[in-house]
């Protein structure tokens, strides 16, 4: 299924797991060495920086080659620019397949670059060609395209795009073919998302799909997100007005409010119970979304008070968890695992410098009183 050499990818997984087992002290270092000697990994998978560099170089190369041919065949190309890009997208895809059969690359940047250039060219050409057709057909074609690419390359980004296009199929099909769709649509999307979540979770546990692990992680996050958003009051309210032309409050407001507030804790509970990072992370993100949903309709308190209280709450929760897990309990620990420390620390420092910088520039005059002070003005919009 994959364009890559799967025997080599298996070797990579075995080597990784042997290292983990060695670090955990389950197998002897000599055993790990013997396992790695018996399962060599020879594909070219350079570090992230080379990958980015090679990816950029590949994308640039294809873009410029396209540009050069476009200039040379200016008259013909302008008249059928969609077909021009379609042809180039298919050519780039052909180059990808050829390259992977001849070269021993995996996630080297060259394959990522070719994948993305070709898929963007083809998708762009399809969108332009189908401008006058029904969006349903377009989304079906885009989903099929993304599915094909996902199966061949297991690229998580394309898998995500495929899921979004798939949801759009459901939305448009429901509006076109199901009478009373406007009332059913949220539940339809929620049902499909829940089904897809269970399907992807099962697939992830299946050994056969081991090379699609990251894809399935992303897809599970996406299904959880669409499941929540389809039941979120703000989304239902606004999508109802914009897409379906409904007016006023959506029917069953209490139900959507309950879903908006109750789903994130349920995800967190699910994640902790199953020791599964995906629902846990999504639950934490969605708590923030739930807070924004409430604030969009009810200004309970001024934003700075809400910020202070929220900050105290978050710091307090993490304090108690730290205290509680000082010695690991119930299989949970606060110690870092599987992270290379130095790069992560540097990145953390950069993020802190980026977001917590509130010192004014030297040449700005410093004024007090009446100012809106660092984002505090947002409350007046609601």
């Amino acid at each position, binding site marked *: 299924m994959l364009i890559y050499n799967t025997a080599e990818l298996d070797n990579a997984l075995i080597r990784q797991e042997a290292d983990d087992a060695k670090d955990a002290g389950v197998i002897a270092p000599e055993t790990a060495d013997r396992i790695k000697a018996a399962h060599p990994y020879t594909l070219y998978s*350079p570090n992230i920086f*080379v990958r980015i560099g090679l990816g950029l170089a590949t994308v640039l190369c294809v873009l410029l080659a396209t540009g050069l041919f476009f200039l040379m065949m200016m008259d013909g190309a302008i008249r059928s620019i969609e077909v021009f890009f379609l042809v180039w997208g298919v050519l780039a895809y052909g180059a990808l397949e050829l390259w992977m059969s001849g070269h021993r690359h995996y996630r080297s940047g060259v394959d990522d670059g070719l994948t993305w250039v070709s898929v963007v060219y083809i998708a762009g050409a399809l969108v332009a060609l189908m401008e006058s057709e029904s969006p349903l057909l377009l989304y079906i074609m885009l989903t099929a395209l993304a599915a094909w690419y996902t199966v061949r390359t297991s690229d998580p980004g394309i898998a995500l795009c495929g899921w979004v296009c798939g949801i759009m199929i459901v939305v448009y099909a429901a509006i076109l073919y199901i009478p009373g769709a406007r009332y059913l649509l949220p539940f339809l999307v929620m049902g499909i998302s829940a089904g897809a979540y269970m399907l992807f979770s099962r697939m992830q546990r299946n050994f056969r799909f081991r090379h699609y692990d990251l894809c399935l992680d992303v897809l599970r996050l996406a299904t959880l997100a669409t499941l929540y958003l389809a039941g979120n009051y703000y989304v239902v309210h606004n999508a109802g007005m914009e897409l379906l032309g409904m007016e006023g409050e959506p029917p069953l407001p209490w139900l959507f409010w309950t879903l908006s507030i109750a789903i994130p804790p349920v995800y967190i509970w699910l994640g902790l119970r199953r020791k599964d990072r995906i629902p846990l992370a999504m639950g934490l993100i969605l708590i923030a979304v739930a807070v924004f949903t409430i604030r969009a309709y009810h200004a309970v308190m001024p934003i700075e008070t809400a910020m202070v209280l929220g900050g105290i709450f978050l*710091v307090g929760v*993490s304090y108690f968890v730290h205290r509680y897990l000082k010695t690991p309990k119930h299989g949970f620990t606060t110690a870092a695992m*599987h992270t290379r420390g130095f790069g992560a620390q540097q990145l953390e420092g950069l993020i802190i410098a980026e977001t917590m910088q509130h010192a004014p520039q030297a040449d700005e005059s410093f004024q007090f009183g009446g100012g809106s002070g660092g984002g505090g003005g947002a409350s007046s919009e609601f």
Partner: protein
Amino acid sequence: MRKNFIHQLADEGLLSETERLRLEAQQGSRMFSLHWELKTLLYLGVLLLSGGLGTLIYKNIDTIGHQAILAGIGLLCAVCFWYANKHKAPFTWEKTESPNAWWDYVVLLGCLLFISFITYLQGQYEVFGTRLGSATFIPMVVLFISAYYFDHLGVLSLAITNFAAWLGIAITPMHLLSSNAFGTERRLIDTALLIGLVLTAAGYASSRFNRKAHFSFTYYNFAVHVFCIGALCGMFFEDGMLLLYVPALVAALAFYYFLGVRLRSFYFLLMTVIYAYIGLGYLVIFTLVQALDTLEMGVLYLSILYLIVSSIAMARILIHLNRKLKSHADL
């Protein structure tokens, strides 16, 4: 380890019987780390708390609760520093390990609150005089002292960006290009070069004299971007100054190239390659455009050809450099 792999490895005779049993037993009892989740919660909590308290001061400036809020912030800040000081490892010029993630963010919160507090005092009462751009100078000093005293990379990054802000430039990743009007004022470009030089010197001194040597990467990281972007902007925007800014860029690239080789840091090699690619590309296309009269449309074709050839060359150089440093995956 996945069950199928355990079977496979056992069949191949690579696992002893005890190891196979231990691997199978391990499957059910995996530790689940909440490290990054908690870090994220703490980060968001501190972000909200410092932002919210900072806004509270200004919003309540004319009310009676104002003094109380100010006192509260001062108290909270004192508690943070007291706690951080109590639980920190003794000071050395070497790298010290932080007790845990919670402690890291207490230090950060203390520093942020302290800055809010003295910026307010300064703005309201001008406690520290009006010279030296003290609105940013004093926070900078506080941040640098805290960074070294508590050995905290996040505070150090804040201190460095504050240092640049004191000289009039934003150097955080998102604002380096968007907030500075490099094209309009030559002063800003030269300030960027100066900051790059100072930070490079600081990074060099850190490792040379072994004073918190692990801070040097942070200094170098800010320095290489500020300096190279400053020099490139000088090349792009200042007519007739190529003879000044090109040698500056070349010197910086040479320094960071050899630094990358010495530290075995692929990150710096990549940055020099990318900035060199941009600089060289500009020079080549600049020269081609000068010859517009004689070449006409040829300029466009030659430029595109140059870019194609040079991007392939860049890919080859990257692969070569990666091989040179071999298996170095981190920074």
